[in-house]
């Protein structure tokens, strides 16, 4: 058979279409029988000859077949590379498409530079319907075969300048990833981007990348850090950087995502270049009433930071830690896990200050814990004290405030925690933010209390607060006992957000039904003093043994009426505690009335340790404050 094929192939004259048809059929047959050696070389030579034919049909057919051949034998096709690149510029669109595909299949490390150069040249003159394909292919090539990072960045900048509109989001994210990983090139990158930006024409990807880099590495731009050889020095003042950002913000072609990038970058720049803060404030303030919720939210948050929280601003917008590529890729695949995936992608973790794996004596804020816990309704972890604490540091409260998407950087373990925290921030923001931060003082590790303890008194203390503060975001006192800290003194705390309250309500409201289907325990008298009796009744669901619902009843055994009764409880670290609002805060004298409250306890070491609790009750007699505290040790075993 190979003899016949060889004979036919050599003897057929190819000036007529019929002859070419026969030769083409021969080639197809040779490929189909997967011949090796001379016969295949013959076939590829025929195809090469076809490529040089002036007839479009023949060239089309040749390109089509070569795509299949290149999978089998790349070397042989490399010889015809120049002809193929010529075909990319042909007038017939089907030939162009086929040639482009073939070129991409032919690229390897050695020829990628020349090929990319040619393709970029062509990109400038190609017609608009072909540009998206060409751009995607060029980006793909560059991404796969770049010999060094500097070249990669250069090519990507060129592509973005030429055809920024067609560069897809994930390509620009990958570029940002690479830039953050290449510490020595960051200065060079931001300077080249600045130069390229002078020719900006509304390309979205260029705007996003430039804005992000200026935000992160602005000081390298202004102070000429890390200059590489052969770089022309360019003088950029701080005002220039803000100019760039302003330009992007004001341009009508910028999408909301780009504007969101720009707002974040403005915040970062204001921390790096304090001289421009006033101007930046004015710029950010303009978006306070924006119809796009994301922009409005950011504008208000950032304005608040810029005006009231100067002290934490610096730690907030420190340099981002190096984005981990493997995590990024895993996250991309897993985008659904992140609570605010679209947002988080567009705000590449702007606010994470320190390296996430800091396991030291981290300061956790019960305020943020509470917020996170609010949304732990959706996430099942919740009870690991270690996870959130690994990522707490000075700016943490604000980290949560500003929806730090730490999905890129934190180890995957902590990611479910950040989901809710991202969510918490949005909620926080929704319902007036900011004050939380000013009171939280440092405290030792505290347990995650699923719902912070409510305080009915707070409502009466703060009549100006329209929504009674049910979730008091309170600081923890600095008792260093083995128990977790008490919830704080309400006088000190100015309640941060009405927001928490609404949601606290939501959360607790949903779980308010008490089921008594579980094992039954006898009620106990938890605490007794000369004026006050506290008794507990227990119920437990058989399906959820570690959780117990306690009905607490307070009785006033003295002859004075108690007003402003506040009950507080604390539990050791292996337990979690939730207090629901008490039925009232006035205890009439001589046991004539009672106040009840529902307490939910979750014992993560159910079966191994039994419950213990410290309680503290404060109340007023004729305006005089009285405080009583004690420990409840007589819980029935097995709770």
């Amino acid at each position, binding site marked *: 058979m190979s003899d016949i094929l060889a004979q036919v192939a050599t003897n057929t004259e190819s000036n007529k*279409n*019929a002859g*070419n*048809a026969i030769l*083409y*059929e021969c080639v*197809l047959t040779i490929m189909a029988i997967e011949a090796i050696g001379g016969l295949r070389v013959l076939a590829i030579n025929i195809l090469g000859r076809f490529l040089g034919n002036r007839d*479009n*049909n*023949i*060239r*089309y*057919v040749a390109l089509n077949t070569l795509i299949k051949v290149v999978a089998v034998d790349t070397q042989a096709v490399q010889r015809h590379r120049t002809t193929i690149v010529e075909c990319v510029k042909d*007038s*017939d*669109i*089907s*030939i162009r498409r086929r040639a482009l595909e073939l070129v991409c299949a032919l690229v390897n490390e050695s020829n990628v530079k020349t090929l990319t150069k040619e393709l970029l040249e062509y990109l400038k003159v190609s017609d608009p319907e072909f540009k998206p394909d060409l751009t995607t292919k060029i980006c793909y090539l560059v991404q796969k075969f770049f010999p060094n990072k500097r070249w990669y960045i250069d090519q990507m900048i060129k592509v973005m300048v030429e055809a920024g509109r067609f560069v897809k989001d994930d390509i620009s994210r990958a570029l940002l990833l690479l830039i953050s990983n290449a510490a020595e090139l960051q200065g060079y990158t931001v300077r080249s981007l600045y130069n390229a930006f002078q020719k900006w024409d509304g390309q979205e990807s260029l705007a996003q990348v430039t804005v992000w880099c200026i935000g992160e590495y602005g000081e390298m731009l202004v102070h000429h850090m890390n200059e590489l050889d052969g770089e022309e020095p360019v003088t950029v003042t701080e005002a220039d950087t803000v100019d760039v950002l302003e330009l992007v913000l004001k341009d009508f072609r910028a999408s909301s995502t780009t504007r969101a990038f720009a707002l974040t970058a403005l915040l970062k720049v204001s921390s790096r270049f304090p001289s421009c803060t006033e101007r930046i404030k004015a710029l950010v303030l303009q978006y306070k009433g924006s119809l796009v919720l994301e922009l409005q939210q950011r504008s208000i948050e950032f304005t608040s930071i810029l005006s009231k929280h100067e002290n934490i601003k610096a730690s907030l917008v420190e340099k981002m830690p190096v984005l981990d590529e493997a995590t990024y890729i895993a996250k991309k695949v897993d985008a659904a896990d992140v609570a605010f995936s679209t947002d988080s992608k567009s705000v590449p973790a702007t606010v994470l200050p320190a390296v996430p794996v800091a396991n030291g004596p981290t300061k956790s804020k019960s305020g943020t814990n509470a917020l996170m816990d609010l949304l732990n309704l959706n996430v099942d972890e919740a009870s690991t004290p270690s996870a959130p604490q690994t990522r707490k540091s000075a700016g943490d409260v604000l980290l949560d405030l500003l929806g730090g998407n730490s999905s890129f950087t934190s180890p995957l373990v902590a990611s479910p925690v950040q989901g809710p925290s991202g969510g918490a921030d949005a909620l926080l923001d929704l319902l007036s933010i900011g004050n939380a931060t000013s009171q939280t003082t440092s405290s030792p590790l505290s347990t995650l209390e699923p719902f912070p303890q409510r305080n009915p008194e707070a409502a009466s203390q703060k009549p100006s607060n329209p929504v009674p503060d049910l979730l008091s975001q309170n600081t923890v006192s600095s008792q260093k006992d083995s128990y977790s800290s008490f919830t704080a003194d309400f006088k000190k705390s100015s309640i941060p957000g009405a927001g928490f309250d609404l949601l606290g309500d939501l959360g607790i409201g949903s779980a308010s039904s008490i089921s008594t289907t579980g094992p039954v325990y006898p009620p106990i008298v938890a605490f007794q003093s000369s004026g006050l009796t506290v008794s507990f009744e227990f119920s437990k669901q058989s399906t959820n043994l570690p959780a117990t619902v306690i009905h607490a009843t307070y009785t006033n055994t003295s002859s004075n009426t108690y007003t402003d009764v506040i009950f507080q409880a604390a539990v050791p670290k292996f337990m979690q505690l939730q207090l629901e609002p008490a039925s009232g805060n006035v205890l009439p004298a001589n046991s004539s009335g009672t106040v009840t409250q529902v307490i939910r306890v979750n014992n993560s070491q159910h079966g191994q340790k039994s419950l213990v609790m410290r309680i503290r009750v404060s109340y007023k007699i004729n305006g005089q404050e009285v405080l009583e505290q004690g420990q409840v040790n007589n819980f029935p075993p097995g709770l």
Partner: protein
Amino acid sequence: MIHFVLLFSRQGKVRLTKWYSPYSQKERTKAIRELSGGILPRGPKLCNFVDWRGLKVVYKRYASLYFCMCIDSEDNELECLEIIHHYVQILDRYFGNVCELDLIFNFHKAYFILDEVLIAGELQESSKKSVARVIAAQDSMVDAAKEQMASLSNIIAQATR
């Protein structure tokens, strides 16, 4: 295999269709509409192969008529071009310098010739001479039958006079 053959004019009027694959009436009109819409605007320098619904359509323009054939994606397109040319040459030889008018007024003959050349979507007769001979034989049979009809009617007319 060839799935269908389609002939249409520059104005988009269909002159001949032959279907070798099952296409319902609706699908047929849809295919015709799509293809004429896709092929008519193409410029002269573009190549003659179009991808359509996973199949290839090979077309060739002769004067004011477009000859289209839809083939499988593995088939040889150059071969299909040759088949189209083969068919046109036979028509040309039969009608003598064939033009579109010939096909409009003698479309039944065009179908006869096509059925000689293609069967079930494959090339059946690659010799122009054989096709010409066979079609000529058919024509002479038709003439003889006409004559017979004419003479019969003469006899009947005479008989009933």
